[in-house]
């Protein structure tokens, strides 16, 4: 059972109310509490947080837990433990499982499994189209009734604009956000890396930014028409940032996310054909990376999400063309984001924490992202100065496919608490 905790002497950051002060934070009965509301003789278990940052539990809006169907890559048990180690108290699970999460009973199974085996909150999403085939509407209202927080065909994208219009109308009626993997597949056409200088040098088939930008534009127009809540996943191109910025200025209901790897890396990293740098959308050019950083700083891009996509080593250890897309990210996200944004003085800690907790909670309409008294005690304690080396062998995830192996990074999650229960401690 959760106890009575006093996290003392930490820098308390709560972006939900702009709080930023050194002090003590109290947890009792699984909730944040104001100690004056409890008897004076209450005995607290002290957790020394001096020199550390105490934040709302981080929320990752884009995670592939691979269950049901691919437990060799990840399970709800292993994926949520990796999440806890990364400071996350909630993850949004993508529906490209086997079977795809396009039926209420699959959602029920995931929720049940998460209750039994998960250590952080798991918010399931449901498919937009049956079987993620992009042909026929999935039972969206039933999926909502089963408890999904959003709808997405992630990993794929509905190509038919007519169908997408109906999907948006229906989702608008249900007031569920649509998480869109933006890829026009006749344009990406088998591309494996960003189309540009490096695809030309390496002789790898290019995935043009245009493939993303066409769907971002299409969906912005459709969202404008239908009033749907459009959320563009993992933006990768400067053009997409510009499109989202213009749409927001016009008042369209659109939000966007970016991954740590698109903020940290460029396609130059592909020079050795290392498949741990192969993901979809692919790493862009230096200009793309600059625009993404600008976008996350100025709020065009709302938050950061990992697109944690575990794959077995034997699947990744093949010719570049044959390797699956995707990399793990839960256990490196905070440090890579801090290296890329805070260390380079693009964001301060409150700004980063907001983009990892309060803002994704608000966009998705899920609880969390706050330290307010009365709210469930989901929190992370971060040592912003701790230097460490990324070692994939030490991951709690079942998979090791990270591009950040061997990186010297600064900033580490020391403790994670979900509803007053410690789920990770370094």
């Amino acid at each position, binding site marked *: 059972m959760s106890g009575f905790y006093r996290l003392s002497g930490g820098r308390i950051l709560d972006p939900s109310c702009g709080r930023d002060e050194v002090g003590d934070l109290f947890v009792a009965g699984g909730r944040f509490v104001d100690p004056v509301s409890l008897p004076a003789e209450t005995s607290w278990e002290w957790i020394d947080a001096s020199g550390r940052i105490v934040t709302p539990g981080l929320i990752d809006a884009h995670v592939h837990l691979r269950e049901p169907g691919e437990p060799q890559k990840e399970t709800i048990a292993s994926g949520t433990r990796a999440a806890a180690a990364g400071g996350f108290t909630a993850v949004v699970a993508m529906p490209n499982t086997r079977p795809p999460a396009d039926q209420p009973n699959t959602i029920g199974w995931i929720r049940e499994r998460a209750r039994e085996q998960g250590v952080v909150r798991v918010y399931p999403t449901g498919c937009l189209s049956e079987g993620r085939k992009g042909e026929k509407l999935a039972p969206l209202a039933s999926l909502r009734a089963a408890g999904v927080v959003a709808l997405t065909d992630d990993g794929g994208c509905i190509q038919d604009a007519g169908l997408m219009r109906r999907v948006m109308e229906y989702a608008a009626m249900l007031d569920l956000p649509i998480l869109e993997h933006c890829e026009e597949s006749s344009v990406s056409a088998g591309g494996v890396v960003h189309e*540009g200088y490096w695809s030309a040098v*390496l*002789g*790898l088939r290019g995935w043009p930014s245009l493939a993303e930008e066409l769907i971002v534009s299409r969906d912005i127009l459709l969202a404008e028409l239908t009033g749907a809540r459009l959320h563009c996943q993992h933006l990768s191109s400067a053009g997409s940032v510009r499109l989202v910025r213009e749409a927001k200025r016009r008042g369209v209901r659109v939000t966007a996310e970016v991954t740590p790897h698109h903020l940290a890396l460029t396609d130059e990293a592909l020079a050795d*054909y290392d498949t741990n740098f192969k993901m979809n959308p692919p790493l862009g050019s230096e200009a793309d990376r600059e625009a993404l950083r600008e976008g996350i700083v100025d709020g065009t891009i709302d938050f950061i999400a990992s697109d944690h996509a575990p794959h077995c080593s*034997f699947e990744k*250890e093949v*010719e*570049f063309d*044959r390797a699956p897309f995707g990399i793990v990210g839960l256990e490196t996200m905070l440090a890579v984001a801090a290296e890329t944004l805070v260390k380079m003085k693009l964001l301060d800690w409150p700004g980063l924490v907001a983009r990892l907790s309060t803002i994704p909670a608000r966009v998705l309409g899920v609880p969390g992202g706050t330290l307010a008294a009365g709210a469930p005690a989901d929190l992370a304690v971060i040592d912003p100065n701790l230097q460490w080396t990324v070692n994939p062998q030490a991951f709690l995830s079942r998979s090791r496919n990270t591009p950040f192996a061997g990186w010297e990074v600064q900033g580490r999650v020391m403790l994670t608490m979900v509803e007053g229960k410690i789920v990770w401690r370094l």
Partner: protein
Amino acid sequence: MASENPEQIPGGRWRRRHLLGLQELEKEEILFLLDAADGIARRLEAGRELPSLRGLTAVNLFIEPSTRTRVSFELAAKRLGASVLEIDQESSSIRKGETLKDTARNLEAMGADFLVLRHSAAGAPHFLADRVRSSVINAGDGAHEHPTQGLLDLLTIRRRLGRIDGVRVAIVGDILHSRVARSDIWGLRKLGAEVTLVGPRTLLPEVFRRFGVRLSSDLDPILPWAQVMILLRIQHERQREGMFPSLGEYVSLYGLSDARLRRCPPEILLMHPGPVERGVEIESELADGPSSVILDQVTSGVAVRMAVFSELARFHRRDREGM
């Protein structure tokens, strides 16, 4: 054993275990290989003794079909006395689902000193080079590189014109999908040639300018300029992919006809990596005409591959002496 190979300088200028591409080579390394190949070509012509690779084994691992390159490597290895094992996609276990990594490690365990790899996936030789002790020689990986083809093109030009520096070379055709074009571009640019790439916009993206070359979608103005013209094979599947409307239209824009040849300088060298599709990239008679050096390329290819084997052999002699 080193005494059998007097031309080999221990600790000489060649220090790489693998030959993966020309992009990563320094100008001096390319010149070193060209000089070595030239030396071997002269020895072959004079019937003089060649370096010996007796006791070493080369495996030709051709996961993508090829005749010319495979035979050229085989001939090069055999002329030097190495044992050659031929494995193609049909006879390899890759068809049975074995991974490339496992195939290569098995071959290595059987004592292969050289793995000559032809593969449809760009980067496959790099993948192997990170995982085996054998010397990996890239015999063409997807649209990436074909370094021995690049070297033999350089050798052919140098033997004909006496230099590469300042030579004006046009490369014509499907640049986007061509590993030959990439190896040629790196080699030619590092050695100071001027290069113009010619092809339709669909097969010649603007980004190639960043290779230090000029681009033209029009062949005709390039004709009087070029001293060397490398014609690339055009694959019919590109038409199906919508890269150009018809073979007829392609030929009218980029095929080398007699009329076009007459607008080239009289001493122009016509090159083609083969196999030539007569009547498409080049009119049939021109491929056999006095300007064509296509068969010189084939001859240079054997010398280049012998030189590459000889230079990489150093690592394997040392490995054995260390045992």
